[in-house]
């Protein structure tokens, strides 16, 4: 019994760690898309940011400067998206695809040229990374049954960015629903003409939204490269940007449901390995690949309207042309 509980605790703890980059990216996607700008480029921005974080951490040895570098790169990529989609009214999906492919290519090219390891960055020492934090009383807590391990491993034992991710959700919710900026942001995603008529700049609002998205992708990349791992490796985002996009759609473009979708997908990720070779009563063995594909399948099913209705922001994907 106790053993089972410890296992459950370890799965919960892994769920939080797996969900962290998804939460950052889902919030990023939410801000961008609630303002009316489709963000297929989460994956690319996160990858570029992860590369930047690892490079800066290698050179400076400081995780904080690395975070700053990653955020700057994330914002630059987001601004490129903004210039293409907001200023030049280009196709937002095409721009996102371009960002993903550019990031996939450039990170390997630059990494290979600078470090000569086929795109990998050198391994980082703990000082240059965000390491798990010690919360008070964690060591003693183990002796307390049930609650002890929960306290030490699920509430505690994570690195700083995990906490930042889960704080970003209420903050994002507050900004979106309880500030003037948030109200305008949602309005511009539903009907930009109304916002424009009120004398507020549609373009500047949307730019701010994509900058927020870039910043959050910067955090996600930093987490992957210098918190969860000890360096950058090619294509290390491995589709997480798309899972986050799926989570955001699954959460119907709202912060709390999106976070729960991220936790669900993180949970699936955490149990996929543990379920290898396990036989379920009545079902038999479930292949790991099926569990890995579940986030995508669930999103398709949801989008098809079989489970409730996912309503996208009304003006999503439409560039705004001011009337002349």
């Amino acid at each position: 019994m106790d053993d089972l509980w410890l296992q459950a605790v370890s799965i919960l703890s892994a769920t939080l760690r797996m969900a962290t980059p998804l939460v950052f990216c889902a919030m990023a996607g939410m801000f961008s898309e609630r303002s009316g700008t489709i963000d297929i480029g989460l994956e690319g921005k996160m990858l570029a940011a992860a590369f930047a974080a690892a490079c800066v951490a290698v050179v400076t040895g400081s995780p904080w400067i690395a975070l700053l570098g990653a955020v700057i790169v994330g914002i630059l990529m987001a601004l490129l998206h903004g210039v293409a989609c907001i200023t030049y009214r280009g196709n937002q999906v095409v721009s996102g695809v371009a960002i993903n492919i550019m990031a996939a290519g450039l990170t390997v090219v630059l990494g290979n040229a600078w470090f000569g390891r086929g795109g990998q960055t050198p391994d980082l020492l703990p000082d240059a990374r965000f390491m798990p934090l010690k919360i008070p009383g964690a060591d003693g807590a183990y002796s307390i049954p049930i609650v002890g391990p929960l306290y030490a491993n699920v509430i505690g034992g994570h690195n700083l960015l995990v906490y930042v991710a889960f704080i970003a959700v209420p903050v994002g919710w507050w900004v979106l629903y309880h500030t003037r900026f948030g109200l305008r942001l949602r309005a511009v995603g539903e009907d930009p003409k109304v916002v424009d008529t009120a004398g507020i700049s549609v373009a500047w609002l949307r730019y701010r939204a994509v900058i927020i998205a870039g910043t959050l992708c910067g955090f996600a990349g930093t987490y992957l490269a210098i918190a969860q791992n000890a360096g950058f490796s090619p294509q290390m985002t491995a589709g997480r940007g798309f899972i986050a996009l799926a989570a955001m759609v699954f959460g119907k473009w709202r912060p709390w449901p999106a976070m729960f979708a991220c936790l669900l997908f993180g949970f699936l990720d955490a149990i996929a390995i543990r379920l290898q070779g396990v036989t379920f009563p009545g079902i038999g063995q479930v292949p790991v690949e099926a569990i890995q594909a579940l986030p995508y399948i669930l999103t398709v099913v949801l989008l098809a309207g079989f489970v409730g209705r996912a309503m996208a922001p009304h003006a999503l994907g439409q560039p705004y042309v001011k009337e002349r």
Partner: protein
Amino acid sequence: MSGAPQVALPRWVDIGLLPIINLIQALLVAGLVVLVIGVNPLDAMRIMAWGVVQDSVSISYTLYYATDFIFTGLAVAVAFHAGLFNIGGEGQAYIAGLGATLAILALDSYLPGILLIPIGLVAAVIFGAGWALVPAYLQAYRGSHIVITTIMFNFIAASLMVYVGSDILRPPGEMLPSSREFGPAAYLPHVHDVMAWLGFEMPSTPLNLSILWAAACCVFVWVFIWRTRWGYAIRAVGLSPKAAIYAGISPKRVVMMAMCLSGALAAGVALNQIMGYHHRMLLDFVAGAGFTGIAVALMGRNHPIGIVLSAILFGALYQGGAELSFEIPTVNRDMVVAMQGLVIMFSGALAYMNRPWIARLYLMLDRRAVLAEAT
């Protein structure tokens, strides 16, 4: 910018000059990156160009790569004509490979090549089209967005192929997920074999007869899109679904038809890679060709001739890039991937960035020409 003249430019500007300007812009940025990593871009260009044209081997490799890009470029273009963005070419080609593999594994000890190869192709086409049909149905009848569903289907395809390759088809003793090797009857003939049979000596390369299928697909797409009522329906829906309804066209059925065709075209990659070269199913044989197709279609302006030209260009970039990374190891092969992204950015997303100033320039020159004629 808001006051930019949206004038109609002559066709040669839109389909000739603009893509070339986009390409130059992408090359300039790529050159800048090459400069940043300490390599002379002009040297790099020279090595790449020579790496493509040096002999018949390098040219054959270029065409072999280009074959894939023609298939995926056409696939993206047909969907574009219907106003759909099919990001799922990668997954459709991947699943098509499964179809070809299953058909061939079942039949390769019974049938001769003359029957086996068409059956493999048909199986690939059915699987590829089928994999595109689900997102198409969901878009047409359930209102889910095709971009998101095709992305999801790429990942679902990848998981499915890992499962099939490792748990079902993997022969005993094989470490990596794959199928057993096909019987020789299922091999699509290589071009050098055919040439040898005709009496010409050619070095051995992966270039195979799937390039003929690619050529047939180009002709078919041109006839279908511009010379049949179905193609007319596709273009009508792509321009304005509402107007198409008034013309008695059902946009839902057009979405299904266009995506079906798109998946069927992407299936050509399976013909080239699985039946023409690897002769077995293996993981990641599509290798990003589905995404290259987006760049190819955008640069080729969704027209078969343009697609052939830009597919050859990207084939040359792949071949030249491989040569370049061999000569100068600092420049990784993935430079080509970055280059694709840049082309998609400049000729797709930033398409409206160039048009205004080119239009202004054109009008200026045009007016001068008119004035010169008048005096």
